[in-house]
C-alpha cells in the first residue's frame, strides 16, 4: 500500500465521518440551503482546474483546464450566492411575523 494512498485514505475516512456527523441532525428547514452549500463546496475541483489551466503543459490541458475553471467558478459563485439569499429570506420571514 503506497503511503500516498494510506494518507489519503485516513483523511478520506475521517472527513466522511465528519460529514455524516455534522449533517446527521440538521433541521429539515435547512435542507435546501445545505444542498446549495454542499453544491458550492463540491466546486473545490477548482483547485485542480487552476493548476491544470495554469501549468500550460499542452494546449489540450490548458483548454480543458480553463473550461474547468470557468465551470467551477459558476458553481462557486452561484452556490454561495444562492445559499446566502436563502438564509436572508429566513430572517425576513421571521421579522415579518405579527
Amino acid at each position, binding site marked *: 500500500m503506497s503511503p500516498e494512498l494510506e494518507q489519503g485514505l485516513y483523511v478520506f475516512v475521517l472527513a466522511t465521518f*465528519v*460529514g455524516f456527523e455534522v449533517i446527521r441532525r440538521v433541521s429539515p428547514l435547512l435542507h435546501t440551503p445545505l444542498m446549495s*452549500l454542499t453544491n458550492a463546496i*463540491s466546486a*473545490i475541483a477548482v483547485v485542480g482546474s487552476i493548476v491544470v489551466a495554469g501549468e500550460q503543459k499542452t494546449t489540450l490541458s490548458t483548454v480543458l483546464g480553463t473550461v474547468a475553471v470557468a465551470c*467551477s467558478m*459558476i458553481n462557486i459563485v452561484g452556490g*454561495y450566492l444562492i445559499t446566502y439569499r436563502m438564509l436572508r429570506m429566513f430572517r425576513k420571514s421571521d421579522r415579518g411575523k405579527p
Partner: protein
Amino acid sequence: MIERAIPLIYLGAAASFVLALKWLSSVPTARRGVIVGIAGMALAVGGTLLRPEIVSYKWIAAAFVAGTVIGVPMAMMPMTAVPQRTALSHAFGALAAALVGTAEFYLQAPRIDRFTMGALALEVLLGFLTFTASLMAFGKLQEILPTRPITYRNQNVVNLAVLGVAAGSGAYLVARPEAAWLFPVLAVLSLLFGVMLIVPIGGADMPTVISLLNSYAGLAAAAMGFVLDNKLLIIAGALDGSSGLILSVIMCRAMNRSFTNVLFGAFGQVQEGAGTAGEQRTVRSATAGEAAAILQAASRVIVVPGYGMAVAQAQHKVRELFDALTKAEIDVRFAIHPVAGRMPGHMNVLLAEADIPYDRLVEMEDVNSEFPQADVALVLGANDVTNPAARHDRSSPIYGMPILDVDRARTVLVVKRSMSPGFAGIENELYHLDRTLMVFGDAKAVVGNIVRELAGGGGN
C-alpha cells in the same frame, strides 16, 4: 517562500468547510456557516494561485470572469427555481472534475501508476455521469423534458450493462494505461449512463436525486484529490460525498420514501413507474419532522381538531404544540366545526381540559374567511367536517353541510392514521390535493413528535 504556507492554507480551507457545514446545519448559526464557507473557498483558490507550477494567469483570469458572469445571474433565479439552479450548477461542477481528469490523463498517460489511474478513472466516470445526470435533472425540473418517469422493458439490464462496460474500460486502463483509445469510450459511456440514470425517475424525486448527485460530485473531487495527492480535495470531496448522501437519506425519510427506492430508482421503479402514474390520485405524505418545519416557517396556523384528536386523547399534546408555536410568535387559532367529534361540544370539552384559551377558538363562519390567509391548516383527526365534497358534490351524503374550508389554506397538514374514511364513510378529496400533506399516525404520537422536532430541531 510563500508557497511553503500552501499546505497550511489548504488546511485552513479544509477546516473552514467543516465548520461551514456544521454551522449551516442549525438555524441560528447558518449565516456564519455561509461566510466561513466562502472564506474556505477563498483560501483554497488563493492558495492554489500561489502554487509555483502555475506559469500563466491569463486563462485563469478569463475563466474567472466568465464563470462569475454566468454564475451571478444564475444565482438570481427566483427562489422557486432553486432545485433547477442547483442541478445546473452541479452539472458545471461535475464537468470541471471530469475535464481535469481528462487533462491529467492525456498529460500523464501512459506513464501513469495504477493507483493514480484508478483514482483518475473513478474521477472521470463520476464526473461525466454526474454532468449529464444533473443536466437531465435540470431538464425535468424545468419541465423542458417530460417530468414523468420514462421506463421500458429490461431497462435495468441495459443500464447495468452500460455502467458495467464503462467500469470495465476503467479497470482495463488501470491494468494497461497505454490503451489510451479506451479513455474516450469510458467518457462517452459515463455521459450516457448519466442520462439513462435519470430517465426513469419522476420529477417529484428530483430534489433527492440532486442531493445524491451532489454526493457523487463530491466523490469525483475526492478522487481528483487522490490523483493530485491533494488533501484539501480529498477532505472537501469526502465531506461533500458523505453529507450529500446523508442529506438525501434524510430527505427521503422526510418524504416517507425508502432511500434505496430512490438510490436505485432507475432499476427499482421500472415496474411501478410504468403507465398511468401521474393520472392516478396521488397522496403526498410527510413526516412529523417535515410537518414541524412547515409549521415553523408559518406565521398563521389554524388547527382543526376532530374526532381523531379525541380518540387519541391528544389534547394535552395539542396544548404543547400551541405553546411551542405561540412562543415562536406564530399565530395559532382553533377552528371547531359544529359537528366535529361525536357529541355536541366534544372538542370544547377536550380543549378546555387542556386549557386552550377561549379567545383562540374561532367560529366556523368567521374562520372560513381566514383560511386563505392561513399558511397552514393543521387537521388533527378531522375528516368529514373538512370534506370539500360537501360544497359541490350533490351526490355526497354530506352535500350541503357547511364545512371548514381548510383546502383554501396555503398548506394543509392532515394528521390521521390511515386513509380510512370518517363517520360518514366517504372518501375525502382533500387528501389528494397538491397542497395537502398527510402525516400518518396516531394523533397523540404525531403531535408529540412535532413538538419534539420543534423543540430540538432548531439545531442545538
